[in-house]
């Protein structure tokens, strides 16, 4: 069974933070088209501050908990709670584990997704981060279910997150600020789905790189 060590994987959160900070302007620009243009700024603030707090010795669940705390207590907006709960859900699923294998990783993703759904009011298809997250989890699960190696499942997860992100272009926003635009929200990527696909893609890459063997 392929697995990564929880204790050695905290660096993934720093990698995610780097990607988010690097995409600050891009995320804000997307957000500006149908939102208020601060998605990148707020995300970079939260993830950047987390990166400063991490010293590289954390386990994956510890690092995720630090990220969650910063997002929940300092960021606000809608992304603070949504991503805050997502990462706390993920952390919770793995906090007892020494090692994260293909099944546990799936459970971790599931727990994160459940938390997001719980606090938010959106469904898949509403042009939110769920549209990147849900298909990514499905793709991962079904690859594992088909007996594919974990690395392949992670690739599938990343690809599905990106495809999911792109699918939001044709959607009409049903929740959040953009929802008031109705038809005018069509034709633009959802900023949350975009940041979510960056997060999940980087997560998948980070795990893949750490797989033994």
């Amino acid at each position, binding site marked *: 069974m392929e697995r990564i060590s929880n204790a050695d994987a905290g660096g993934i959160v720093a990698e995610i933070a780097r*990607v988010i900070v*690097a995409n*600050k*302007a*891009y995320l*804000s*620009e*997307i957000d*500006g088209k*149908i*939102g*208020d*243009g*601060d998605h*990148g*700024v*707020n995300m970079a*603030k939260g993830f950047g501050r987390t990166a400063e707090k991490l010293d590289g010795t954390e386990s994956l669940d510890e690092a995720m908990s630090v990220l969650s705390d910063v997002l*929940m*207590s*300092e*960021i*606000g*907006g*809608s*992304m*603070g*709670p*949504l991503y805050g709960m997502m990462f706390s859900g993920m952390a919770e699923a793995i906090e007892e584990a020494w090692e994260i294998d293909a099944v546990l990783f799936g459970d971790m993703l599931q727990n994160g997704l459940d938390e997001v759904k719980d*606090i*938010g*009011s959106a469904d898949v298809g509403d042009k939110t981060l769920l549209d990147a997250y849900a298909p990514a989890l499905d793709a991962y699960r079904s690859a594992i279910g088909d007996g594919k190696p974990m690395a392949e499942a992670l690739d599938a997860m990343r690809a599905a997150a*990106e495809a999911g992100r792109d699918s939001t*272009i044709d959607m009409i926003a049903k*929740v*959040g*600020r*953009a*929802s*008031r*635009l109705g038809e*005018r929200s069509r034709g633009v*990527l959802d900023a949350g789905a975009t940041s979510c696909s960056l997060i999940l893609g980087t997560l998948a890459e980070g795990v893949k790189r750490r797989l033994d063997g």
Partner: protein
Amino acid sequence: MAAKAGTGPAAAVGSARSEGGVPLRFGDDLLLWASWLYYEEGLTQSDIARIIGVSRASVISYLADARERGIVNIAIKTEKLRSLTIAKALQEHFGLKDCLVIPGEGGGRSPFESLGSGGAQALRSIIKPGDTIGVGWGRSVLAAAERLSVDGLQDVRVVQATGSTSAHVPYTPAACATAMATAIRAECIPISAPAIVSRRELRDMLVQETPVQEQLASLEELNRIVFGIASLRPNSTLYSSGFLNDTPKFRDAYSGAVGAIAGHYIDDMGRRIDGPLDGRIIGISLEQIAATPQRIAIASGIDKVPAILAALRGGFVNVLITDAATGAGILSADGREIQPARAAATPVPETGTALPARSSVKKFLNTPEDAVDEALEGAVAEHAAFLRPVRDSNRALIARNGPREGKVGLVIGGGSGHDPCFLGYVGRGMADAVAIGNVFASPPPGPIFDCTRAVNRGAGVLHLFGNYSGDVMNFEMAAEMAQMEGIEVSTVVTTDDIASSAAEDRSGRRGVAGNLFVFKVAGAACDRMMPLSQVELLARKANRRTFTVGVALESCSLPETRRPLFMLGEGEMEVGVGVHGEPGVLRQSVETADDTADLVVDRILSEMDPARGDEVALLLNSLGSTPLMELYIVGRRVRQRLKARGISVARSWAGHYCTSLDMVGMSVTMMQLDEQLRDLLDHPSDTPAFRIG
């Protein structure tokens, strides 16, 4: 993916060229531009006058000035080109070691010729004795090599960076390397194998062959590499050269790619994309390129912006040679605006030219990231008579004269950028505490909870805020936290913005300037010691009877970006705009104040459906930059309309009550009054921004 590198931003830069003015992308140096066109492009003074949009006399004076100031020394100094604003911005933004930007507009030469001249000029100062230089292939690289001639360099080697192709183009890998070696009198090391072979095993065998092995080994010794960046458009060198098979299946495999370097596909972040070419390329690898100390990319073209940006992000380039339009496009696609040209120091064109379009909004700020905290620090000091921090953070403020035993506590809150909303409404008779978030972002649960706990005096707490998903989530979490401590919390969200959703979906509408009336009514009810259930009912009633429509003339800009959130055309206005710059219901040509007022009044009255003899409270609110003068003009017409309808304005206010940073625009709010609401509106209140009695 293409959306990222965005034709949008690039186009925006292109359009930033104001007629008659100096195009932004030429930086601030008119002299340099004129000199380039004259000496490098060989244009006549009249042609230059036409292109720059000044008189021929001005051109003559530019050129004279340029000679005098040593810009022109027969050849234009590369230093001057580097000093172009765009080059500087690119260097800074991407941490480049060097950057050369060719003015690149005007003149009859093809883009490759101009770029080649610039590239040759740069290489002349870059190449040193003892160098081992890798040379990629493509039109730009060949153009640079053909224009380069350097004598007297010792011990220089040129290494062909990729294997060879049989393509019927002049700029094959071998041709490029040979031309470069000839230009600098260097030894040329070819790669005696195809760039791409049909099978992996074949590659593995070929690279074992002694000559190839030796040639490839020299790629490990590069101290510089010069290469082009391929875009993936259909007529890209990559395909037209026959370097690759342009089959649908092949393209599918690389659908995530935005460009290619030395035959390696990369995605928008500059990461390698795996595909059918894996293990079949003979030549330099991406890792080898990244490991080469100096990595010089020569590339231009708006269609290449995504590819160049990806290469920059991937760290494959530390010296960039491009043209101004492309450079501006790259910066723009990565979210960086270029400071506009300031032509004041250079001769001013004589005709009445338009001011250059501003792309960066001027603001009184220190560090943008500190704007919210510094503003709060100032506001808390300014209004110290009314409020103080609940604990040690200015993100949760409590009224000095508010909470008292047995009184329902009123907690309001929201993002920053709406001043005097929300903290201006904290004080006796209105809110007891306010939680404040970042610009346009809800506060997190922490400060809301702190406020809730601080104002609870045994009669429960009302959470009252605008209806935005972020606020709803954060207040909900804070309410849960408070309820766990046994504090009774009720929640009312304001939904007065007519434009934000249809009448049937009242609960989906957002809360805007009507906040003022709802806060006032709820605060008065609290101050009169009404029980929580009744306060809640009254807040709902006030909200139900309050309607707002906003109209924007210009976008606001966030402190951290200083860029407009949205663009309205010269003669356009946005009707129904939200206080975060959310687009409204329609964009139309700017009307007179009276026509605009009519539009707004029509919408409000059709929803309110008042009877003759009804009374309203009226709020004429500036969204930030619209002056009181204009509010009065609009208000005058609003009153005329109401009078004609037999409605009296019982109470009214005009000014800044719920703003959207520096947005130019206004909103009109009306609350349909009854005895009870008017009474509560008249109840004394004493807050920084709203005083009654």
